């Protein structure tokens, strides 16, 4: 354990949010069991009141998730001098086996919390709360994941032992850790690039079709998701290289640093933004056939599609710009 302010902040924040989520999950369970909108009984009234608490908790949890995602990476980056062999966040995350799982869970939980809020927003617009069971089912699914994140994050922090001078010889002879930076796979570039632009083109096409005709929402979600995965791989395997202007540096975290004009923040935000709104489109497909959401759901979906495509486009523009105006010229 390193008593670093950010580590304390992240741990305390996660633990508090988790406690609130446990309460929410409990209330969610009650709602799943006893919800009956027709009734004006006191039980039902108190359940309805609990939905407000859960929404608020989830909104806070989501904001926390977004901020803590960046704070976490930044902390890892910041602590790298404490570990021999760690050059940046990539190395620090590799110090023990919990680093990367925490990072991944943070990303997944961001998607879940965002998705939940989208569904909640939609549901709250319909007078009969048609998605209520689904919504709280999802909550019961997401809460354990966030709890898992808290636990894994805590074990990660607890397992951080800085390499310090020791009695006999200094930290020198702790075995050199293999930097993950070099081991991140550099995938073949050409097929990846083709896939990326193909996927992006398809997403935009499908998005436009969906916007006008209201058809193919699932297809859009799927294509968008696949494109983003390709984009993530592309980011690691070649886009980064242009940003760093180094032919071998694949680290996806260093782009968040000031040396690279914080270019990583818009990249990550557009990436996550496109992902969460893209999934949101698919998740709301079911709602289109519900009487009370017939008009509302498509309107929200349209907004989501626009937002998702906007994010995707910005992502492509930023990475394209970086590649076009980089001093690094690569022949492939």
């Amino acid at each position, binding site marked *: 354990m390193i008593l670093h302010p950010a580590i304390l902040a992240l741990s305390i924040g996660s633990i508090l949010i988790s406690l609130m989520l446990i309460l929410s999950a409990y209330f969610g369970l009650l709602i799943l069991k006893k919800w009956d*909108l*027709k009734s*004006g*009984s*006191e039980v039902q*009234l108190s359940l*309805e*009141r609990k939905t407000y608490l859960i929404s608020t908790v989830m909104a806070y949890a989501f904001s926390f998730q977004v901020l803590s995602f960046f704070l976490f990476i930044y902390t890892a980056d910041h602590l790298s001098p404490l570990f021999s062999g760690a050059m940046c966040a990539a190395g620090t995350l590799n110090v023990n086996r919990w680093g990367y799982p925490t990072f991944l869970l943070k990303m997944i939980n961001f998607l879940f919390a965002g998705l939940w809020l989208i569904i909640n927003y939609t549901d*709250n617009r319909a*007078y*009969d*709360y048609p998605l209520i069971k689904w919504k709280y089912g999802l909550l019961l699914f997401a809460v354990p994941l966030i709890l898992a994140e808290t636990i894994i994050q805590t074990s990660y922090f607890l397992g951080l032992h800085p390499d310090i001078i020791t009695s006999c010889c200094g930290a020198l002879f702790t075995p050199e850790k293999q930097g993950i930076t070099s081991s991140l796979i550099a995938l073949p570039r050409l097929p990846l690039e083709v896939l990326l632009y193909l996927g992006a083109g398809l997403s935009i096409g499908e998005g436009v079709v969906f916007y006008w005709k209201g058809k193919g929402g699932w297809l859009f979600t799927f294509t968008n998701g696949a494109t983003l995965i390709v984009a993530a791989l592309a980011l690691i395997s070649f886009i980064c290289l242009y940003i760093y202007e180094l032919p071998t540096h694949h680290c996806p975290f260093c782009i968040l640093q000031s040396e690279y004009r914080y270019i990583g923040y818009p990249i990550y935000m557009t990436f996550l933004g496109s992902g969460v709104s893209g999934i949101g489109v698919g998740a709301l497909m079911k709602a289109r056939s519900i009487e009370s959401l017939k008009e509302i759901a498509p309107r929200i979906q349209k907004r989501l599609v626009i937002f998702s495509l906007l994010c995707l486009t910005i992502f492509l523009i930023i990475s394209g710009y970086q590649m076009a105006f980089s001093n690094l010229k690569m022949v492939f």
Partner: protein
Amino acid sequence: MIQLQNIKKVFHMGKPNEFVAIDGIDLSISSHQITVFKGPSGSGKTTLLSLIGSMARPTAGRIFLFDREITSLPERFLTEVRRKTFGFIFQQFNLIKGLTAIENVMTPAYPSGEKRGSLAKRAYELLNLFGMAQKASVRVDWLSGGETQRVTIARALINHPSIIIADEPTAHLDTKLSIEFMDIMGKLNQEGKTILIASHDPMIHESPLVHRVIEMRDGKIIRN
């Protein structure tokens, strides 16, 4: 316009202190009328008004407002209905202390996200209508009973309600002010507002302006 079907309201259901406030009321209220509910305290007038005013939901039965069922609406939508349809005048006035008269009048419209400028203008016009324009920026704690009453009415009207609900409006007013209150209600009624009043003040149910008096006792209607 407002229809109640077999409305029941039970407090603390299933507990030792269970209390039946409204016990199966069927009622239909037509628009553009002044309707008065009379009866001793504890007869369920106030509870009935809060049910009609969609402040609370009945334990059983159904309420239709402009032919739309509002009984099973969740609170989120009920509030919207309440804000758009009803204006409330309470027994204790219930102005927010420490705010000026005009701020009090504006408060109900804050959540609708109206521009401050146009909202203030409307509030000022309403206060002017009741001769309160010069007191607009006076804190309500320093207003007299009659002035407070008029601010309360102005507040009830800020969201253009079609129905005004008044609960014992004259309980804290003297005779002169009570007459003045009924005059204002009469005027509003002529402008097309539906008015519901709960009161045991004879001044009100004997007023010639009133179209209909409903007498209640123990959560039931005894005379219509």
